[in-house]
């Protein structure tokens, strides 16, 4: 029956995207559009003494310059600025609110002009005088002031004592620098203010989150604000929270009573949020057979002075490995930077990197194959909550990944594999993420002509949400995929959570199933109402919708076409709206898993590293679309290569400024850095996680990849580099 679910389906929005028909937040043009350009702070901390906008206002075509002094009214209280993903503790940043400078790159003024170029020219003429305050942006320098925060992971046993008496011990610190998302699409918002009605086209991963936020900040009624984001050129977490340009665009639209667009520059986007620089300390104590006796994982991460952002860096070991004694600690250091934010696999990308490097080091100490060590410690239960998994095919990931990679040909000794002037290294790591579902509602409108509109307020951030929703709806409604029209990215559509956390596929697809069932029930009623109905007496779960027909599951010859059922009931459309069921059930852990195998070749003399092969074997429940799923995981692997070898936001701590705020100098992998990447999806039927057995793929692709590469670099060179990125000067001692 399921002909679309599980089949490699090309993106339904592919044509719109490559032809330019798909419009992004900065592309909605309306008559009289005003363009805003942001003037940002050049100091990280202090106070604005004076802003001289006279030079800007003299420029032909400039309409106004908004600052904290002359902006329209907005809410005062912190709570009004707390969006759905705001940190629990702290005061959210309030754009253009007052004269306080909290970070370099903070917007201080918005120049409004008839065209974008004029606004930009005028912005360079705005003069700001500051009263500087002492600042600090260096995690290492401020480390002594780190403070512990509450974390859910509880200690077990006595990790310190067990570590002290362990047969083999490994203890080390790992470091991940600040990283930025760098989505291709620049952040932009177009705000249209019309007689008290506000329409906003925004680059966001959650239109309803932005809608609620704007209502709160501008004290507007929900039905007066509509936020749309039909397409997004990459988010990776940077678009989870409402970003400041949307506030500025609305402020300006209200001030001028004209439509306003604010688009940020690439450099300005480096002040939106980042993956926090994190120090991770691992202490592993093992028995000589490779079972773990003690596991301590501590993280010290960066947050801003005004909000407490923290993600689960340290709990992943509880999901992967058995250890009777365990201890976890999460500390924060407050710096004069924007609040850290979610970036692909927040917490796991960093925490699992450290954990999986530490496991590799332990394997070396034990003289044990790294895969074997993981099998020795393999946990069939979530160690923290002491519950089983809904499914966990991680053993199969190790097996299939190792086989595809040819792991059995690896010689254990570092520097033992060579190819000409290159040292060859093979490394591996595990990956883990959550398989969550969030409440979501989907509306289906089935029309008598055999078309269905499937709608929810999700954002497709480029992952393929339009496509998988069309696939699932086509199967559930028994219609061709071309007859399904998916509508997303509009806050007026039925409720949907933010597109993040890898939960959208499971949430919306299960909601589609429920809504489709309701539609099926309505159709069945109509069919039963027909004279001599072949479906008389059937219940909603006794029938299925197949090929445009309502068909008895027991006897396929008993069927009524959807068209005739609707016709006989004089129904020109059936509209239904249902939510998914999110289990309260805490009896199982819900996770996705992966095993990553990486080959590096390192020039022995020059230290130049190439990642020549990666195999990522993923167990993530039901794979809805192998084509988009493959892209998701492959993209994660590429990002993992960047995390391992390239990515680093470089601060000059004297100025408290990012020095490489552009994609020429903030390095991500280019084609030459990407070689052979193989993605394997391990079969993982799961009837517990949710009715459709979907686990989500957004994050898992990157988790563990940097560790596998770092472990491969060690295997190649004998040099253990624990602070990312692994640049050539860290691999070879040149001087």
């Amino acid at each position, binding site marked *: 029956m399921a002909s679309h679910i599980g089949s490699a389906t090309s993106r339904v929005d592919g044509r719109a995207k490559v032809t330019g028909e798909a419009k992004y937040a900065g592309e909605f043009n309306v008559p009289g559009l005003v363009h805003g350009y942001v003037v940002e702070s*050049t100091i990280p901390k202090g106070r604005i003494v004076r802003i001289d906008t006279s030079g800007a206002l003299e420029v032909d075509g400039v309409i106004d310059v908004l600052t904290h002094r002359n902006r329209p009214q907005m809410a005062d209280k912190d709570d009004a600025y707390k969006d759905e993903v705001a940190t629990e503790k702290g005061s959210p940043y309030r754009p253009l609110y007052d004269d306080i400078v909290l970070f370099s790159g903070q917007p201080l003024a918005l120049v409004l002009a008839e065209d974008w170029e004029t606004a930009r020219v005028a912005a360079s003429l705005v003069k700001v005088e500051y009263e500087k305050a002492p600042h600090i942006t260096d995690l290492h320098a401020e480390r002594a002031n780190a403070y512990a925060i509450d974390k859910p992971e509880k200690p077990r046993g006595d990790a310190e004592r067990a570590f002290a008496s362990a047969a083999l011990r490994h203890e080390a610190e790992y470091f991940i620098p600040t990283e930025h998302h760098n989505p291709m699409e620049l952040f932009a918002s177009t705000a249209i203010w019309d007689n008290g009605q506000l329409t906003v086209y925004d680059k966001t991963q959650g239109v309803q989150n932005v809608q609620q936020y704007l209502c709160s900040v501008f004290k507007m009624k929900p039905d007066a604000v509509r936020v749309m984001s039909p397409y997004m050129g990459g988010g990776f977490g940077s678009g989870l929270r409402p970003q400041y340009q949307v506030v500025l665009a609305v402020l300006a639209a209200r001030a001028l009573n004209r439509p306003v667009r604010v688009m940020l520059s690439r450099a300005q986007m480096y002040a939106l949020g980042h993956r926090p620089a994190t120090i991770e300390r691992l202490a592993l104590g093992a028995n000589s057979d490779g079972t773990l006796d003690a596991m301590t994982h501590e993280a010290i991460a960066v947050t801003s002075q005004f909000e407490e952002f923290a993600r689960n860096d340290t709990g992943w070991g509880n999901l992967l490995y058995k250890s009777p004694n365990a201890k976890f600690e999460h500390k924060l250091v407050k710096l004069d930077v924007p609040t850290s934010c979610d970036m692909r696999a927040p917490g796991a990308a960093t925490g699992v990197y450290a954990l999986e490097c530490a496991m590799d080091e332990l394997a070396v100490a034990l003289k044990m194959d790294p895969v074997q060590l993981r099998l020795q410690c393999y946990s069939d239960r979530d160690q923290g909550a002491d519950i089983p998994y809904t499914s966990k095919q991680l053993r199969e990931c190790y097996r299939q990944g190792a086989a595809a990679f040819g792991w059995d040909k690896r010689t254990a000794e570092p520097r033992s594999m060579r190819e000409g002037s290159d040292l060859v290294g093979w490394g591996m790591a595990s990956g883990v993420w959550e398989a969550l579902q969030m409440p979501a509602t989907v509306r289906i409108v089935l029309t008598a002509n055999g078309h269905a509109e499937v709608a929810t307020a999700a954002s497709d951030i480029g992952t393929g949400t339009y496509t998988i929703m069309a696939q699932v709806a086509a199967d559930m409604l028994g219609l061709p995929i071309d007859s399904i029209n998916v509508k997303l990215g509009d806050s007026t559509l039925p409720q949907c959570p933010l597109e993040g956390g890898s939960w959208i596929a499971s949430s919306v697809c299960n909601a589609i199933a429920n809504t489709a069932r309701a539609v099926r029930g309505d159709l069945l009623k109509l069919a039963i109402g027909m004279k001599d109905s072949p479906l008389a007496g059937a219940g909603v779960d006794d029938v299925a919708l197949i090929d445009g027909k309502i068909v008895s599951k027991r006897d396929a010859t008993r069927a009524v076409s959807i068209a005739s059922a609707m016709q006989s009931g004089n129904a020109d459309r059936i509209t239904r709206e249902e939510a998914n069921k999110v289990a309260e059930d805490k009896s199982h852990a819900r996770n996705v898993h992966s095993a990553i195998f990486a080959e590096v070749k390192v020039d022995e003399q020059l230290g*130049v590293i190439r990642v020549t092969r990666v195999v990522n074997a993923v167990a993530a429940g039901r794979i809805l679309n192998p084509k988009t799923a493959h892209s998701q995981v492959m993209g994660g692997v590429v990002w993992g290569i960047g995390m391992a070898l390239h990515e680093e936001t470089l601060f*000059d701590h004297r100025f408290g*400024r990012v*020095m490489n705020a552009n994609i020429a100098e903030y390095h991500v992998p*280019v084609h030459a850095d990407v070689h052979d990447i193989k993605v394997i999806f391990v079969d993982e039927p799961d009837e517990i996680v949710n009715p459709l057995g979907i686990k989500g793929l957004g994050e898992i692709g990157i988790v563990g990849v940097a560790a596998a590469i770092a472990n491969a670099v060690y295997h190649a060179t004998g040099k253990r580099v624990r602070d990312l990125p692994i640049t*050539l000067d860290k691999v070879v*001692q*040149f001087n």
Partner: protein
Amino acid sequence: MTPFQYARANDVADAIKQIATDPSAKFIAGGTNLIDLIKYDVEGPSRLIDISHLPLRSIEPTSAGGVLIGAMVPNTDLAYHPLIEGRYPLLSRAILSGASQQLRNMASTGGNLLQRTRCFYYYDTATPCNKREPGSGCSAIDGVNRINAILGTSEACIATHPSDMCVALAALEATVHVTGPAGARTIAFADFHRLPGNTPQRDTNLEPDEIITAIELPPKGFSANYSYLKIRDRLSYAFALVSVAAALELDGDTIKEARLALGGVAHKPWRSSAAEAALLGQRADATAFAKAADWLLHGAKGYGHNNFKIGLARRAIIRTLDQAARGTPQSNSDKKIR
């Protein structure tokens, strides 16, 4: 960003005339660097004089046995020209190791010589930089200086010249043809770019009212034994941490002539006559190469983040000379170092 006038130059004389009347004007050809600098408010020319249409697009053999390259020849056309690929493959390989195809399509030969440094502080107007604002100080010396210079630096500036093409041109001892109000003159490549000294704002010895019209290559192209090796923080589309242009003339395994230039390490392509002399008459082997490397890096000094460049450069020089001697030049498509 500052608004500017746009004007086209009809011919070289017109270009010179236009720039002479407006000292704050700039020539624009491909614009691959200047446009960025305008956007960053590092440059704010009152007028852009478009010279991209000047008839300086030919690549022709000279009567002296060399090749004359028009200043407006796009980097791509130059790199793939049969005369260059055949006789000066070092130049071709150096060009192709820089930027991206799209940028090389736009970038001109003359403009390549005039690109500005990529020092982070030069681009960030919120920080002091003597090159951008003379007298304001050098932020890189005690700052984020991984990409900065180790040779020929001054207390005023440790910026590098980012070109790959120029490193090959230095090794090939090209000549720069320029024209100004006083007429045409030639500048030896080694004299074209300057060291920062106390005037880091001046990258070259080109006068403000002069224009580059052509680059002349001498007859000798070293097409048998050459290599251009570029080491960077990713395998493509990044500026050099260290790059090496090596060209040898061998008699058996004895070195008859040697040219060696470094990129990514100084305010100009870095050569040393002592290093090249040290190779003459020597067997082309690791010992000789190491000696040459030591000469070339004589006086090298790190500033913290870039200390590693000294050792990296030493090894890169040895490797590149070895590639040149073996006749196995570094390839741009195969990212593996040979």
